[in-house]
């Protein structure tokens, strides 16, 4: 505001004047302008002409006043420079009204109070933790008042997640909502509870995590769009989904029961895999044995038949002699091995009952 600056320079005039050496009379406006011109040309020429000019005290004072005015003006002008970082956009407000949006780099605006600048991290992805907070040393702490929520089947589940968001519309982001972070946080907390409230605990804990993420993201986005917040949700990432601490033991037992079930099945399957091939092997052995038997008996029969044929042919050449020979040869072999008791037919009836039939006494030979 030009007038206020003029006010300032007017106020400043007296102290400077006093210090300059006693001339209380302020210069008239024409004089001021002339002096200003002189001073400027003098400044460019080298040493100030006002300093070694013939005007003495009065000239010096006037020179200093204009010098100060110029310096103040320049300083004010310089204060309008500002830097916009690579991931930012700057919104220039002229008397509080959105006048321009500037990209990264060095920029200048008409200094305060005419224009002000708000730098907004437009392309930066901002991160919000819900259900926990992580600290700079890497530690995290649970926030159970945020993370515990009820499922559709009235179980309690412990969920923490991360919301990542970006500024979608600078105008809306800056002018439509107060406290963007809190807006996103509130929407996220409300949305996840709504989504979890529609899902059963088993689904949440096992198969439907991705669906919960997607549904929550869509819901948060629609809430924020309802506020025309100018924010776009990039991702929802579920960090930790688990049963509450108080019942975690029982949940783990269910998991181990599920494993027990699989184990029982696998063991049974292993048993089956053991006995069935075994049985098949055994069966094949039975069949092969039978085949071997069949072959054996048939071949033996054939052999024996052939032997008989041959023998019969030879026998027919000389039946009487062959018959006798066969008989005696056989009997010789048989009787050679066996214990023999030769009893005459007439005494046989009397003796036989008394013969020692046990094996104790051998070689009893009774002859007539």
């Amino acid at each position, binding site marked *: 505001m030009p007038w206020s600056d003029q006010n300032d320079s007017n106020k400043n005039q007296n102290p400077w004047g006093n210090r300059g050496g006693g001339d209380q009379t302020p210069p008239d406006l024409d004089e001021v302008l002339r002096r200003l011109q002189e001073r400027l040309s003098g400044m460019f020429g080298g040493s100030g002409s006002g300093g070694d000019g013939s005007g003495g005290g009065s000239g010096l004072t006037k020179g200093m006043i204009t010098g100060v005015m110029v310096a103040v003006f320049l300083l004010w002008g310089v204060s309008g420079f500002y830097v916009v970082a690579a991931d930012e956009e700057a919104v220039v407000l002229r008397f509080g009204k959105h006048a321009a949006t500037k990209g990264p780099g060095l920029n200048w605006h008409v200094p305060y109070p005419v224009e002000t600048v708000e730098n907004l991290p437009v392309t930066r992805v901002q991160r919000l933790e819900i259900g926990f907070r992580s600290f700079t040393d890497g530690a995290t702490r649970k926030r159970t008042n945020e993370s515990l929520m009820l499922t559709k089947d009235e179980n309690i589940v412990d969920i923490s997640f991360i919301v990542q968001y970006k500024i979608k519309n600078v105008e809306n982001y800056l002018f439509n909502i107060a406290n963007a972070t809190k807006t996103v946080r509130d929407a996220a907390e409300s949305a996840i509870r709504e989504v979890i409230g529609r899902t059963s605990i088993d689904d949440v804990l096992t198969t439907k995590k991705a669906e919960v993420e997607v549904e929550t993201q869509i819901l948060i986005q629609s809430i924020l769009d309802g506020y025309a917040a100018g924010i776009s949700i990039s991702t929802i990432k579920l960090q930790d989904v688990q049963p509450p601490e108080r019942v975690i033991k029982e949940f783990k037992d269910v998991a181990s029961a599920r494993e027990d079930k699989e184990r029982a099945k696998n063991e049974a399957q292993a048993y*089956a895999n053991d006995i069935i091939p075994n049985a098949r092997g055994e069966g094949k052995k039975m069949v092969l044995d039978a085949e071997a038997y069949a*072959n054996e008996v048939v071949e033996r029969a054939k052999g024996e038949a052939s032997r008989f044929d041959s023998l019969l042919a030879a026998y027919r050449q000389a039946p009487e002699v062959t018959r006798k020979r066969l008989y005696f040869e056989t009997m010789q072999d048989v009787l050679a091995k066996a214990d023999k008791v030769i009893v005459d*037919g007439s005494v046989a009836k009397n003796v036989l009952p008394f013969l020692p039939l046990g094996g104790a006494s051998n070689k009893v030979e009774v002859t007539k």
Partner: protein
Amino acid sequence: MSPKQTILLVVLAAVGVILSMSAFVVDQRQQTLILQFGNPKGIEKEAGLHFKLPWQSIETFDSRLLESDAPPNEVITKDKKTILVDNYARWRIIDPLKVYQVARTQTGVASRMEDVVRGKVREVLGQHTLHEIVSGGEKANLRVELMQSIRDRSDKGVRELGLEIIDVRIKRADLPQENSEAVFQRMRAERNRIAKEYRSEGEEAAKEIRAEAEKKRKFVLADAYKQSEILRGHADAETTAIYAMAYEKDAEFYGFTRSLEAYRESIGEGTRLVISPDSEFFRFFEKSQK
């Protein structure tokens, strides 16, 4: 100082003072109420540089969507149970004049608004049972309906404060401590049941698999037995035919040789024979001539 200079100075100073007292800036995020000795004279919502009479003052209000996150609120449900409801609201000042009249400041009106919302939350949730609020009961999106209804009623309620309510959302509807304990108990029981179910299902499946395997084994063995018996039978038949064909050529001689063979096989060491010397073998035993 010449009179000319003095006048100029005075005029300049006066203009400066008057300008600084008359000009005011309305930020795009704000709306301004102009007051003349405490009497509202006008509202300026347009952002930019504006002027007023120097003796008028201004009161500034936010024009953005504002947050309100009151502490959790106890609600008695239809079935006379207590739940802890944590809700938030998003609201906006639409009439700075009314706000100024009822509460003077933004902070003042915010607490009035929170009272209204709290009342409406109680009113709406009080018509439903705990079960319905917590899990929606029969209706899938009852929660959404409830929030909608609270929003509509609250919005109506705060109009006289010069506000509008864009949204009311339930963040949490927690069970009181003793109910949480009951939930945990139920969760434990349920988990135990599921664990048991899994284990018996495992047993069941294992038994079935084993029985099935046994069955298969028996099938395989029975089939093999059948095959082997058939093979043996065929072989036996064939053998019998072969023997019959051979021996039929001279049945008497077969009887003779077979008997001899049988003697050879059956009478071994240790067999005690009681023989009469009358037998053919001993024909020459007692005398050389017959």
